[in-house]
């Protein structure tokens, strides 16, 4: 009992540190978004909604929100499509190779995003191998740059989230017993019907979780957008950085952040509400 109590207290200590380092700055941050900027990084002393009104009525900002959502959505979809088959094969591998592949994946997810993105600029840049290959394949017809546009950012985001997606989906697939697949096949299902009637429904709750995590990461991604978008792809994180560094307008940056966070939270809640009943994920465990 006493040991248990100490353990709880230790948990509380960690919670307190997190609260102090996260919630307190957030409070000042959110508060700042309700004051007007009076230039030179200074803020007024009258509470106002002006920052929000300005953002929500300006086409430029609304388009930036739309762009951020679209890029994140596309990157999430592409990431899932790439990660799902990989995770499936990893989860169904029975040899010792598996452990090494998972370790490799884990290591690759530790590599700094800046390193990954700079690698991509080399690959996609006009002197890089991929545009060169495209030029050869199209007989010189292809001349457009692969860098500094939306698709470059999507590629960067996919690379950013892929290891995590594979790891998450690996766990999801591993939780679906192999015997369920065999049962479906022996009782007459084709491979496609097996995926449609058994694997996808059972993986759906986990798939949704993975999608949301990746989507949230994409919505906040700054490095990919700024380095691969090269100023042409203005997403909300990029705009926030500009507001702070170029315009020294802290309240506007704060308001943009609050709106971005609110949008992300809203989308997550929405996804959880329309998500097919959670009971099915429980049933997988019961069957396993």
């Amino acid at each position: 009992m006493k040991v248990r109590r100490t353990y709880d207290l230790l948990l509380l200590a960690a919670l307190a540190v997190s609260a102090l380092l996260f919630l307190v700055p957030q409070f000042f941050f959110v508060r700042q978004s309700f004051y007007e900027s009076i230039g030179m990084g200074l803020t007024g002393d009258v509470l106002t909604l002006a920052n929000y009104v300005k953002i929500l009525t300006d086409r430029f900002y609304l388009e930036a929100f739309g762009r951020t959502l679209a890029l994140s959505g596309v990157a999430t979809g592409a990431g899932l499509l790439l990660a799902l088959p990989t995770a499936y094969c990893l989860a169904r591998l029975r040899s010792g190779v598996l452990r090494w592949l998972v370790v490799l994946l884990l290591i690759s997810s530790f590599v700094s995003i800046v390193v990954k993105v700079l690698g991509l600029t080399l690959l996609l840049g006009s002197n890089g191998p991929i545009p060169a290959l495209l030029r050869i394949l199209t007989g010189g017809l292809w001349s457009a740059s692969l860098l500094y546009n939306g698709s470059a950012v999507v590629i960067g985001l996919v690379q950013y989230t892929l290891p995590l997606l594979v790891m998450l989906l690996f766990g999801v697939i591993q939780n679906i017993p192999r015997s369920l697949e065999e049962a479906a096949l022996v009782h007459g299902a084709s491979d496609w019907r097996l995926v449609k009637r058994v694997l996808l429904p059972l993986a759906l709750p986990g798939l949704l979780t993975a999608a949301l995590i990746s989507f949230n990461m994409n919505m906040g991604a700054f490095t990919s957008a700024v380095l691969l978008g090269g100023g042409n792809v203005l997403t909300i994180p990029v705009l926030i950085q500009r507001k702070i560094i170029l315009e020294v307008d802290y309240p506007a940056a704060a308001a943009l952040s609050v709106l971005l966070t609110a949008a992300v939270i809203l989308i997550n809640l929405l996804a959880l509400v329309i998500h097919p009943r959670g009971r099915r994920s429980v049933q997988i465990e019961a069957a396993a």
Partner: protein
Amino acid sequence: MEAKATMSRVTLKGLVKRYQQTEVVKGIDLAVEEGEFIVLLGPSGCGKTTTLRMIAGFTEPTSGTVSIGGEIVNKLPPRARNVGMVFQDYALFPNMTVAENIGFGLVERRAAPQRVNSRTAEMLALIRMGGFERRYPSELSGGQQQRVALARSLAYEPRVLLMDEPLGALDQKLREEMQREFTRIQRALAITTIFVTHDQQEAMALADRIVVMNAGRIEQCGHPEELYRNPETLFIAKFVGRSNLFSGVVQSRTDAIVIVRSSTGHLLEARDKGGVAPGQQVVCVVRPERLFIVDLDHPATGQNTLAAKLLRRSFFGSSVDLVLLDRNGQEIIVQVSDGAPLPAGEDVTVGFAPQDTLCFAAPSDAAS
């Protein structure tokens, strides 16, 4: 009718499965007749499950053929083989109701909805689970889940029913109930059934014919009674039913009768089962119920006898086990219908008939 009689015969010819260096199944030849209930019995790792999986189509044989109804199905995927299968972990689809699970095979075969519904109702009646249509597998007990799994694999009228240790996860009482249930349903449908288990009692309760496998080969194949009364190898004698083993050396031999000097110094007369020669190390096998305690009512004339000391009695209701120790301190089990109230520690003489004493060559390595 004549054609139908061979439609669901399963024939295995020279079936071999090799994984890299290890040969798991080393050449199986077996013919399963129409409507027969076959049990593949053996210790874990004997290749019985691999054999079943080759019949189902999950594992491709390294060599040899699997035929169902006279047609070689080696190259057919599981879904094209028209077999039913029940798994150890039930493998019910947790995202589907009982009715959806049972109807799965028919829906995948594009049966008309009315047919799916009527057949599902029939199956629910067969497994006596009417009213459970809308339940999910997680809301059922283990026994109910396994009955639904059975119904699912029978609903589309497969040619052959395969069962891979389906009762392994259930407790003893429920297992016996399910064994009766399986027998009833199998008899009612007369479906060719191949059942895998490592439990010899289960095999005896279910099988028309038991195929005992050991180390990738068929050791012996026959009616449960035949296996029990007339084991052809020491492995069968030890694996099917309980046995007392007495090691010794052959003294002499006349036709199929051998005289063995046991390691406790007794002379035993036994039936030769392994072509043994004088001087050879052998093991004599006697079933516990074939042993008796020698007393005035049970004289030892013409019988083999051993001196022993009573260690304890174990009461099982319908029978009593007397556990004895021979001179070497090895346990002997005597199964009697009613134990004479002998005190523990009593010196007794155990008797058994020569025709109940089977003599096998001793295994060459001590491990087996």
